[in-house]
């Protein structure tokens, strides 16, 4: 059966069972590998994507449920050499080590900044609690998100 998804602003048709996880449709069906598989049980957040702007764990969302809704993956937030301010902040702050959690973490941060452009450190930590990072100890991730918020506040980006 064919599914019609709107992914990163483009309409995509995929020949897949709507009861398969969205993560599988993105990775195996569309070749969008930025959303990563870490647990498949909604505990690690490596598979985070945005569904109508909300962070969801793509491993536990059925593809059919995304039908007709806006899916944003890491591949959809910037293009070419230009980066989203959150991505630049992650790079500058050294908030990335192995990078496996990074796409999910960046998307979670983007959705936070859409809800709360000036988050406190506590708000940042709470917001990303569904995204595990085993490498960084979170400190530089939190600092990067705060820095991105400041940059966006200064008008340092046109994505928010």
């Amino acid at each position: 059966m064919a599914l019609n998804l709107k992914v990163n602003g483009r309409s995509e048709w995929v020949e897949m069972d709507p009861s398969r996880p969205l993560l599988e449709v993105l990775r195996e069906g569309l070749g969008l590998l930025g959303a990563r598989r870490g647990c498949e049980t909604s505990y690690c957040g490596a598979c985070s994507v945005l569904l109508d702007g909300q962070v969801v764990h793509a491993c536990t969302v059925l593809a059919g449920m995304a039908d007709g809704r806006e899916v944003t993956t890491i591949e959809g937030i910037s293009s070419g050499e230009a980066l989203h301010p959150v991505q630049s902040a992650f790079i500058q702050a050294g908030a990335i080590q192995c990078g496996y959690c990074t796409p999910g973490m960046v998307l979670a941060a983007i959705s936070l900044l859409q809800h709360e452009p000036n988050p406190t450190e506590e708000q940042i930590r709470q917001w990303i609690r569904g995204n595990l990072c085993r490498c960084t100890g979170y400190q530089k991730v939190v600092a990067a998100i705060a820095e991105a918020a400041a940059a966006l506040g200064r008008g340092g980006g046109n994505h928010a």
Partner: protein
Amino acid sequence: MPELTVVGRPVVRKDLFRKATGSGQYTVDLELPRQLHGKVLRSPFAHARILHLDPGPALKLPGVLAVVTGIDFPVGYWGSHIKDQPPMARGVARYIGEPVAAVAAVDEEVAEEACQRIQVEYEPLPAVYTIEEALAAEAPLLHPDLLRYERNPQVCRPQANSNVLNHTRIRRGEVEAALRRAVLVEEGEYRTQAQEHVSLEPSACLARWERDGHLTVWSSTQCPFIVREDVARSLGVLTHRVRVIVPDVGGGFGGKVHVRLEPIAALLSQRAGRPVKMVHTRYEEFIASTVRHPSWIRLRAGLDAEGRLSGWQAEIYFDTGAYSDSGEMVSWQTALGGAGPYRVGDVAIDTYAVYTNKVPAGAFRGMGWPQVMWAVESHLDRLARRAGIDPVELRLKNALRDGDETVTGERLEGVGLVECLQTAAEAIGWGKPRPAGHGRAVVSVMKSSAPNSTASAVVKVNEDGAVQVVTGAAEIGTGSHSALAQICAEALGVSYEAVEVTAPDTAYAPFDRGAVSDRTTFHLGDAVYQAALMARRQLLEVAAARLEAAVEDLELEDGILSVRGVPERRLSFREAARLSYVRHGGPILGQGRHLEEEIVPLHPETGQSPRACSHYKFGAQAVEVAVDPETGMVQVEQVVSGHDCGQAVNPLQVEGQIQGAVAQGLGYALMEEMRFEAGQVTNPTLMDYPVPTAPDVPPIRAIAVEVPHPHSPFGVKGVGEPGIIGVAPAIGNAVHDALGICLSELPLTPERILRALEQAGDSRPGSRTEIPAPWDPE
């Protein structure tokens, strides 16, 4: 030393752009035409003879292309310093989760279903699940052939007719007499739990067996050359037939040193005639990949009238599970740490690695030191309390300093311990008033490096002047590639931007032991440094011929080669590189090696050696906690982690390594514990085995105390491991500071804290742990 221009700068890692944009490529992302998926059937028994195995029904399932079992492999075993592990159970299964058969099929679901159809008849055997059970006189032996396994006798000394695969001994002076003379002797017993690495990318590989017998393996590994050796041994082929390529790796922490799935995927690929990909599920990561060794540690320490440690005895047991993996190395390394970073007078240390019927324990950040330092540093606070000495003062009084000897008799230089302790104590507000319910602690940190760790590297300068460093180093997230690029750039006299470190491929890279025990920056860094110096020499020779000057009169700086004092006689780096091709018939090609000639194996009886390993690292860990006596919850308010990292190559990465390690240490100290019931992991999910999330981790102040190493390029040392080592004892001691309770077992869960409070209520603080078994020093 001339001023450093690249080393020491917080350069931006080159792999971060692809990682930030989701275009990093990990083994799990790879796909080849006609690729199959492999799945493993695992033993449901902790110890059982495999009487009969019938793959027939699995092969009949449509979509199944190959099934392999233990007897399909040639008899080949792998391991670190003792080769005791087959790629798949052969005749006997020794832990729940051990592979007994595997299937390659068109997709994972078919492969999974086919596995369930394989019929296996087992005869359960008596099993041992704990260190005590394994050591009992009548205990069943896991490896009756233990003494026949190939091993490195300098590091691995098994005991005949036992489950002890290694015993390392250290003896200096007369410990019994010293303890008799001591004015105060404190005894204690400590235990630690199994911890899972939880790399976010699980173990994964893709194997393609060519019809001409060549095999390519893409693997999510820290150690491509170890994987090559393990695969070659498992399949009985020469290493040149096996090519291992490592894409981006989603975390390692010691969990991706040896093979897990690689030999199985390779044999399946040979049988099916198609590439085979295998990826662990998170559940398999828990039940069938290595863990941190559980331990049982008994200490006896004496103080003299001046508060000096005068005698120290340690008996340390590691539960290594069904196979050694790196158990002999963990027990060997921690013998060096059995008395922590202190001058202890007369000493006796015994470390043992013991087989049990559980998932194998292996390398994990710190290589056994977090376990041993939990005991040592908890013990030091007990001593300080008994003696009425300030714990920081007791440490400073006994801390190893330059010129002191370790327990193995090695004279140390470049020891930054005292500075680290002072810095951490000051930063945490040691001695200042603290709120009610809060406690503070400062502990020492020490870590050895791996012995006899050779490394080699090639630096080549392409025809356009671009520099490539070719090594076997996998970038597992630690920033090692950018550190190596910085070292190369500094030595060569070019910019960081001009240097690229290639991804490891055993077909082209020279041998390296891998990203373990903090060795990449130090050992491989030295090899890269030597290679860069050779390349520099060659460039200077090319330029000397062209500029008609002597090599000694030339200088190379900022990518320009010129005659000293005559700046107009110059050649750009790029021109020199091109000239090398045109005039000298080939590229600039520097080769470098790191060899540890001075390392001497420990004396088998006394453990003495003038140089046991390449270097030691020192640090200090300080915390402030708030403990709720009603709930037993520990809230870590502040963390200060000061480590002597030598010359920091990249301060940003040093901080990141320390912070990440501390967070893993917080998990180890407070929440992470793999629980077992008759050898079965009972909490094999991230729901039942929580790891720290962002709100669980307080801000961590990482302080780099830079005491340059006298023998490494630019004085660098590794700093990936030490951050995890002192966290648990610091928290344990801080909890005592807050509530007056003594804790001896990790993790420090609310239940344990409440139980300790209850006991303290019964028998009042200061109560000493009773040692049940008789103490037998010899």
